[in-house]
């Protein structure tokens, strides 16, 4: 059953990313950003009959029930999504599914990340998280990756970049241009953490190598933040405040957890997800007016552009070099600055690709508005290119 045109994004909530939160709870942030999105849609909480949330730290179990209770919701559909960076896009997919199945009609999708100074600074900063390896969780990851320092995400994306350079070649300058063009966009977005701080290709290449071949300015900076959208059935969407942003196509593909076991380092799971989404929408690549592509690293964007079908495999470097990726360029990419320059607020970082595409299609991206966009491609990426969710969003059904 196709999801095409059956639901739409009608409201957006988003916090301005910050380096740290003091004393905030994730639950509180989720609730606050959720209310923002509901209000933005011109709805009341009592109108919401579906909820999609993340498994937030304070309530890794019973997360949807906790959220429902906290906001006093009456939910006919309440669930949690665990797709890492792809969670935001996956939430929209699930909301669209639930609406199209007739379970509910007005679904709130929420993500948030707090970040406290005392637990996140210094050499011991992630010592208590599952990623650190200090606390074994008896997963294959803990047993066969962690003992070698294969921890976090940097090393994995670095290995993708290294293999990509070996198989196809890409100039460091081409990868750097992705970060530079997105920074230009962030310079036009007052909410971006790197607002009014332009960078050059030289700046990127002169920033310290963190994990060969990736430089510091090719790697996202973790921040705190929150993002939410309200998705409703198409009929409801038409009666609300903003121009509906229709979900025209969606696709999902998961292939591995640890990068060691990825079927291929340089051709990712995006290909299947993106093909599904484009096929469902009946939209061609050349119809896309703006791409909102998960950008935890520059190499992520390069591989995504190829696997989503915008550039031929191995030609990503040339594509990036020959296109102006700024919001006012010929291939607008991540007009909000991307996570590289807007900030990566946990799962809300991934959701920022959804909120920005919706904002642009609604014509509400003041100061960085892409010229009259009709169709947007959104991609969410979780883990180390492990879980992919692609969406095609559009102004018309």
């Amino acid at each position, binding site marked *: 059953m196709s999801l095409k045109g059956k639901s739409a994004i009608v409201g957006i909530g988003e916090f301005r990313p910050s380096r740290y939160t003091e004393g905030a709870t994730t639950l509180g942030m989720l609730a606050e950003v959720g209310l923002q999105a509901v209000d933005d849609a011109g709805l009341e909480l009592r109108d919401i009959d579906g909820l999609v949330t993340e498994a937030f730290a304070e309530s890794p179990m019973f997360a949807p029930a906790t959220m429902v209770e906290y906001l006093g919701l009456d939910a006919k559909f309440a669930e949690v999504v665990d797709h890492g960076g792809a969670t935001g896009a996956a939430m929209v997919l699930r909301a669209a599914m639930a609406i199209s199945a007739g379970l509910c009609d007005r679904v709130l999708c929420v993500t948030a990340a707090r970040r406290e100074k005392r637990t996140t600074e210094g050499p011991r900063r992630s010592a208590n998280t599952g990623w650190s390896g200090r606390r074994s969780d*008896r997963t294959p990851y803990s047993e066969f990756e962690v003992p070698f320092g294969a921890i976090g995400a940097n090393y994995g994306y670095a290995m993708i970049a290294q293999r990509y350079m070996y198989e196809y070649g890409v100039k460091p300058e081409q990868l750097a241009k992705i970060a530079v063009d997105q920074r230009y966009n962030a310079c036009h977005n007052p909410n971006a953490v790197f607002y009014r701080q332009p960078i050059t290709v030289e700046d990127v290449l002169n920033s310290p190598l963190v994990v060969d071949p990736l430089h510091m300015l090719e790697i996202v900076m973790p921040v705190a933040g929150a993002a939410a959208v309200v998705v409703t059935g198409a009929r409801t969407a038409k009666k609300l405040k903003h121009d509906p942003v229709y979900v025209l196509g969606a696709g999902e593909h998961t292939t591995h957890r640890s990068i060691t076991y990825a079927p291929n380092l340089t051709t990712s799971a995006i290909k299947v997800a993106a093909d599904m989404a484009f096929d469902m929408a009946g939209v061609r690549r050349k119809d896309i007016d703006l791409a909102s592509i998960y950008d935890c690293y520059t190499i992520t964007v390069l591989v995504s552009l190829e696997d989503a079908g915008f550039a031929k495999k191995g030609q990503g470097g040339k594509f990036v070099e020959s296109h102006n990726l700024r919001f006012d360029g010929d291939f607008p990419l991540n007009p909000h600055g991307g996570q590289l320059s807007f900030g990566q607020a946990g799962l809300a970082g991934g959701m920022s690709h959804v909120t920005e595409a919706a904002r642009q299609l609604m014509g509400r991206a003041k100061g960085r508005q892409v010229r009259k966009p009709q169709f947007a491609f959104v991609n969410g990426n979780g883990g180390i290119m492990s879980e992919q969710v692609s969406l095609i969003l559009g102004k018309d059904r």
Partner: protein
Amino acid sequence: MSAEASSYAKPLPEPSAVSLPFWEGLRQHKLVLQRSKNTGKFVYYPRLVSPYGPRDELVWTECSGRGSVYSFTVARRPTAPQWADDGPYVIAIVELDEGVHLTANIINCPPDSVRIGMQLNAVFVDVTNDTTLLQFEPAH
């Protein structure tokens, strides 16, 4: 190679009933992996069930310990606090001659000398009295 148990501060694997033969093999400086009876393909990491289907069987088989660098990175900044004092180190995906990929460090060589395709041999590093890690070094 050995190290005092007390001096080893990095995360250690916790073998399960399923993976124990693998870790026991490493302690004896042997690399034994599961092999699918139906397909002849090797499997890494050890599993309770075969990824090649319900009627398959996994058989422990000794491997050559030879492989090559499939991809790698030099971590110039520590990937976790426990590696903070190590200086640059190499994390790699190793392709064993038997076909499977695994993650290990490339040791006993300057990090900057590592290249994709470089031939490797297994090194069994006794990090504690109970635990031996499978690492790799360039083949000479």
